[in-house]
């Protein structure tokens, strides 16, 4: 069973989207902020990380940077799932090594699940 680390501070989203992921057969690990996310990424070695950008204590950019710098976590594909939409944000995120960047309001739940499936199949 594939493991997905969900780094997101909105409890509602963690619950609803987390429920869907579990239904689709994934094991979901939740992290409410960047520091916890980094720790869990190292200890749980997930197959995929869903990362929000606006997080308490550590901004998503910093989390992304650290994940890609750490040899233990740099190979894990990362989907940045956020509501920030600036071109600079998108460019920066791809430059830092994220696999794809999704703006939450522009995608349906099912579409996000499809993207996750595709990346995990690679």
């Amino acid at each position, binding site marked *: 069973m594939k493991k997905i680390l969900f780094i997101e*501070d*909105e409890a*509602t*989203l963690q*619950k*609803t*989207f987390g*429920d*869907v992921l579990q*239904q689709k057969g994934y094991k979901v690990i939740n992290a409410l*902020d960047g520091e916890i996310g980094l720790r869990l990424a190292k200890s749980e070695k997930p197959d995929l990380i869903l990362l929000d950008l*606006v997080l*308490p*204590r550590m901004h998503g950019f910093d989390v992304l940077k650290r994940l890609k710098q750490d040899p233990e976590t740099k190979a894990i594909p990362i989907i940045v799932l956020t*509501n*920030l*939409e*600036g071109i600079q944000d998108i460019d920066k995120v791809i430059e830092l090594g994220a696999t794809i960047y999704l703006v*939450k*309001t522009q995608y*349906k*739940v*099912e579409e996000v699940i499809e993207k996750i499936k595709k990346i995990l199949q690679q």
Partner: protein
Amino acid sequence: MAQDILNQLNVLNQCRRYGLSPWQCPQFLFLVMGIVIIISSIISYLIGAQYIADPEVVVFIVLSIATILFIISYIITRSFERLAEASRMKSEFINIVSHQLRSPLTNIKWTFEILTSKNLEMPTGKVEEYMTNVKDNIARMVELIDDLLIVSRIEQGRIPMRKKEIRLESLIEELVSRYKVFAEASHIELNFYPQKNLPEIFVDPSLIKLVIENLIDNAIRYTRGGGKVKIKLEVKAKNILFSIQDSGVGIPQKEQKYIFQKFFRAENALKERTKGSGLGLYVCKSIIDKAGGRIWFKSEEERGTTFYFTLPIK
């Protein structure tokens, strides 16, 4: 066309549109510079006509005028910088606001998709939880939009103040009894200690109510269970002094200077609750400043915070 030209000449109106004082506004400063040039040219001609044999005086006059013009040009350049900064802050504001509105919107949108989708199964027994989520997020959006409207009106100086003679302690008593239930639910003691024989004050009650609601809300939210919130009201010099003391998480020293800024959330506040709009204290400060009072706080991390504000007694 004549109307347009007249409008352009009405420099003070233009400056007001930017929200800047005339002395920071480029158009006004150019006008001042123009007047200085004209007057100084006339004066130097008149003086020059008298002292034409004395070149030092003429040189002195020319240098003084050049210096004055240089200073005014420098001030004008700075005022352009301020305009650019104001414009940049507006774009940033819009970015932050869109993000703040999108978060609850995503919650609602995705919850609905899950509730109505044929491909996604609703986890049994969770319908009520999901419905509550939607309700909470709608309330969040409403609150944010209300806050934004207030902020916008404050910035344009368009807050209508409907002042009345009121007894502040009655207003606070009403709010305290309303919030007591909310506080008790989190095992927090909320008490109000008004001084005796307090005078009436001349303020807009709905605005002051907003300030006090915000302060009480914050005090309760950032205080952990078993804590106490104490509200005091007394006379100090020519003002009425309101203070609200909580035993909450406090505000870290290095963040204290940003507390009243728009959208600022202290790091430890963000840890407790990421959903605040960060506009509350900005709104409070604007209202108290406009009412002729002063608002400040004392805080120690992990010990608690006390917020104070004064309002003048007429």
